[in-house]
């Protein structure tokens, strides 16, 4: 274990490199990469690494980047790619294909506003659009968590009970370009943590066809199997956490991270970096005697609904603060969690930092002040940057 000063982008690439090398005695590592701000540094870092048994293919588009991963995984290799925003949108078709083909591709997604108009800053709406298609989604708040989550993503994706792509998300610039000390394990530790990738349905000596046509009742069955596997990924995640701690001696973030939430009357629910700001706001308000807590959803797919339901029980009010907007609906996370609270709990949607605006403690304090003034849940509100 060494401590390295890494940006989250570089951390993601380094984790993928270690994971890729860990499969050198298996069928190797394949990555398709294409630059897009702000995930470019991730692919650049990856392109500077050497692999005993691996190849990073510099393709002509994000669509092909995932195409390379699909071909690589279909041939049995461990696979990784990274992208952002419109790049992810361009990749969507193949993200869905990778999911439907049940190929364990790991993706680092650096969340950025979809354009045009062009905006290179953070917004989680790019990744959330993929919520319905059978990919695991993890949202991270700091460098170490991001690094650990990418490593763990390989174990989770390749677990035979899961066997589907895992997206590890970080907000553009806010996290992707933040440089912080990161504990980096030795190759041997990673080798011990990650079993060799074994993709049972890969192309092999037995002729069979991946992705051929099927009729409605087969699709129904396949979708349901996929649905159940994705739901089950929540349980597998707990196993991965245990294995992670055994291998590296530190805890892998929970599906839902909580901060002073148990005795709180009011909760701030968020994903990504807003969650860490929320913890500081909680501390400040607790000093003033307010019973506030923070809940950070790390695992968005599968959504840990039961954990959230338990956390929301008996709360007076919940502010769901998020960096995305589902047009005509409100916050995506809010729309997913609002029914998990009792009918008399106010669950209010706040969209903050859209298009990459800062979400600072004063924004969250203003949000909570607004929440206090509400007796019932109101229409989703955009908290403008001040």
């Amino acid at each position, binding site marked *: 274990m060494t401590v390295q000063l890494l940006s989250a982008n570089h951390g993601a690439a380094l984790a993928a490199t270690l994971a890729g090398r860990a499969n050198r005695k298996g069928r190797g590592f394949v990555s*398709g990469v294409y630059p897009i701000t702000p995930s470019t540094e991730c692919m650049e870092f990856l392109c500077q690494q050497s692999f005993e*048994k691996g190849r990073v293919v510099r393709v002509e588009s994000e669509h092909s980047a995932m*195409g390379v991963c*699909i*071909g690589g995984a*279909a041939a049995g290799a461990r696979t990784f790619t990274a992208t952002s925003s419109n790049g992810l949108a361009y990749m969507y078709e193949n993200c869905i294909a990778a999911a439907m083909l049940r190929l364990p591709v790991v993706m680092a997604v650096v969340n950025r506003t979809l354009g045009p108009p062009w905006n290179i800053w953070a917004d989680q709406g790019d990744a959330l659009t993929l919520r319905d298609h059978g990919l695991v989604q993890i949202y991270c708040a700091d460098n170490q968590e991001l690094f650990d989550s990418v490593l763990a993503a390989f174990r989770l994706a390749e677990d035979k009970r899961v066997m589907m792509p895992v997206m590890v998300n970080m907000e553009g610039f806010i996290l992707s370009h933040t440089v912080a000390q990161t504990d980096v394990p030795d190759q041997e530790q990673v080798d011990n943590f990650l079993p060799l990738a074994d993709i049972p349905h890969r192309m092999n000596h037995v002729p069979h066809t991946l992705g*051929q046509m099927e009729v409605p009742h087969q699709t129904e069955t396949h979708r349901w199997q996929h649905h159940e596997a994705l739901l089950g990924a929540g349980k597998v995640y707990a196993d991965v956490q245990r294995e992670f701690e055994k291998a590296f001696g530190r805890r892998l973030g929970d599906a839902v991270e909580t901060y002073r939430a148990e005795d709180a009357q009011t909760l701030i629910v968020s994903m990504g970096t807003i969650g860490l700001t929320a913890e500081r706001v909680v501390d400040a308000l607790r000093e003033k005697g307010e019973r506030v807590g923070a809940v950070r959803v790390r695992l968005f797919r599968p959504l840990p609904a039961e954990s959230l339901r338990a956390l929301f029980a008996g709360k007076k009010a919940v502010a769901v603060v998020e960096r995305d907007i589902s047009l005509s609906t409100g916050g995506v996370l809010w729309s997913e969690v609002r029914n998990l609270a009792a009918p008399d709990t106010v669950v209010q949607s706040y969209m903050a930092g859209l298009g990459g605006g800062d979400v600072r403690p004063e924004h969250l304090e203003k949000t909570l002040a607004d929440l206090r003034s509400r007796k019932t849940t109101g229409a989703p509100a955009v908290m403008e940057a001040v």
Partner: protein
Amino acid sequence: MNEPVLGGMACTALDRAEPIIRRGNTNCGGCGMSSTLQALRHAVGNRAVELIVPASCCAVAGGGFPQSTFGVPTLMTTFACAPAAASGAAAVASMNGEDTRVVCFAGDGGTFDIGFASLSAAAERNEDILFICYDNEIYGNTGGQRSSATPAGAVTTNTPDGKPEQKKDILAVMAAHRIPYAASISLAHAEDAHRKLAFALGAKGFRFLHVLSPCPTGWKSEPALGLELVRLAVRSGLFPVYEIFDGKRHVVNIEPDFSDEALDMYLSLQRRFQKSGLTATDLRPAIDRYWQNLRSLSGRIVPARRDA
């Protein structure tokens, strides 16, 4: 085996025991794609093959899960990215020391149009892939719309008066990538087709084969006349059969006699050209220009013969 595509060549012990495209598939009668896959079986012998198939008639030909038409491991990809997926598969084969031949098998839509960016990129990277385009000059799978491979004058479902634009010269485009090998294949010339398939399967780097693939359904022609149509297209000079090594050395493999009679016959046997009323006289100048250029590239000056 009496496949017409093999021109009477016998199935020998060197052939692959299992067909690449099995009986009972759903292809239309007279489908050139079926013939191409039969020819591929003949050429590939018992080498390991992986087929990478983008959306196309070939993807439909695979049949319904869990049975498969294909006698080799096959990956169905999205329309635009077969060469990218093949790059991944080829990388894995190579790093594991496997001699698996990764074959991209795409229609003209997946080659000339939507797949073109990833095709060009894989060629530029000189990936170790054999890319075979079975060109039926139409989006057959969706019921017959124009592609950039559709020849001028052909009626399609979205060019009801005949396509006004010329067919894209895909071989010249691929040659411009300076790939190790690019060739056109006539299914009516079995020995030449077999030789090229065998050479392309054995070669390293990016290899591109362009097959004129009769589509009775889209061409509105007799299924039994498919190979004859290809023969007429070759004979008249409309479909030049040649190969290009490293984007430089051009070799004409089959010398046409530039027969206008053959060309008129080719046009009249397909109802897709009926409405525009194309004749040999309309096409001849463009064919002559093409061959003039091809002659200068191949360095073989053979004056064009005329029947009349």
